[in-house]
């Protein structure tokens, strides 16, 4: 790929999705975009690049963003966040939301569904929220991957990555060589297309937000903006989970690391607005 063409994609991805494309990732462009070019009837990638310099079809742009997005995930990825969710967040929710018996959780990069489904399984296993109104919203910038999430059908390899066998036995059904998540878990999740650069107000207020391994793809300014918008949707006593390689330090003052809980961040409260009971 020519260097000028690289810039076309770099600018496009930055503007439309916040993705930072560094030159060391240029090798990905050819392999991931050639199928997109083929789908849209361009003979070569160069021809598609040329077309993008004009007014490009929004559908094409969406396909390009999807192709360049990483969907690496697994059930109970990193284990610890799910233990923290069970041992800290669920008890906190039970204690503070007992009157409404309602909790809203957002998985901001739901990918193929493993994270929201893992949370749903943890909630079922815990049992303390039985009978509550539980909303788990899973969003992603890729509609293709959301279709996979909605289906809830996984390969043998996928269900073994991180998931205890007892969970597989309880919450999955085997159909031929595939594993289907049971409706009782599947029905706990609402999936929606969402671009983290867009306004979040339509998503409503959340008690807990999982935004793991997404911010790493953004530049510092975009990270700060996204975190600021997340804070506006988060309950003052809510929790934000970030990925293992992510932090708020040096990016925003809107959140601070939760003491003793790795990967968990709390919205910073203004001293004046301190004691507010739910």
């Amino acid at each position, binding site marked *: 790929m020519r260097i000028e063409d690289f810039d076309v994609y770099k600018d496009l991805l930055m503007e439309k999705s916040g993705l930072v494309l560094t030159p060391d990732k240029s090798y990905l462009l050819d392999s991931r975009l050639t199928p997109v070019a083929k789908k849209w009837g361009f003979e070569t990638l160069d021809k598609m690049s040329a077309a993008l310099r004009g007014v490009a079809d929004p559908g094409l742009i969406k396909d390009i963003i999807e192709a360049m997005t990483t969907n690496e995930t697994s059930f*109970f990825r990193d*284990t*610890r966040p799910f233990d923290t969710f069970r041992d800290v967040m669920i008890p906190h929710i039970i204690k503070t939301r007992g009157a409404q018996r309602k909790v809203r959780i957002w998985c901001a990069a739901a990918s193929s569904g493993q994270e929201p489904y893992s949370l749903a399984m943890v909630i079922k296993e815990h049992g303390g929220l039985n009978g509550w109104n539980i909303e788990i919203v899973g969003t992603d910038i890729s509609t293709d991957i959301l279709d996979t999430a909605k289906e809830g059908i996984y390969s*043998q*390899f996928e269900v*073994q*990555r*991180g998931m*205890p*066998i*007892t969970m*597989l*036995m309880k919450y999955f059904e*085997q159909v031929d*060589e595939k594993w289907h998540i049971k409706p009782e878990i599947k029905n706990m999740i609402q999936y929606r297309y969402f671009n983290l650069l867009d306004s979040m107000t339509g998503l409503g207020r959340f008690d807990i937000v999982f935004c793991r391994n997404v911010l790493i793809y953004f530049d510092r300014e975009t990270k700060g903006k996204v975190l600021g918008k997340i804070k506006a949707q988060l309950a003052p006593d809510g929790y934000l989970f970030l990925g293992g390689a992510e932090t708020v330090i040096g990016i925003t003052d809107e959140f601070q690391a939760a003491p003793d809980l790795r990967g968990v961040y709390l919205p910073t409260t203004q001293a004046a607005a301190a004691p507010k009971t739910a």
Partner: protein
Amino acid sequence: MTKSCLVVDDSRVVRKVARRIVEDLGFTCEEAEDGQKAYEHCEQNMPEAILLDWNMPVMNGIDFLHKLREMDNGAYPKVVFCTTENDMDHIQRAISGGANEYIMKPFDSEIIETKFKQIGLLSD
């Protein structure tokens, strides 16, 4: 102290792959090519972990597991099945027979590592 893992599989290739993985995870590794050999090994030396194939000559994995759990101290090792049997029926038989975890072949080091963590053989 270093923990030991007994790899029970009739395939030399699988034992070799498994050995490399568990050694990388910090275990010492012993090998047995069938359930009977594994049983004899456990009589002498009870390991912390057992990675267990299902289909083997002489004595298969599930028969070994039942015998193991009846031994003095036989409740001690954590047993992880590692087999090509990948249906719910086998999984249920394994877990009700006293297995702690179940891996369906093919596997990789990450699968073994997370399963070992989940059953407390490794800390994270």
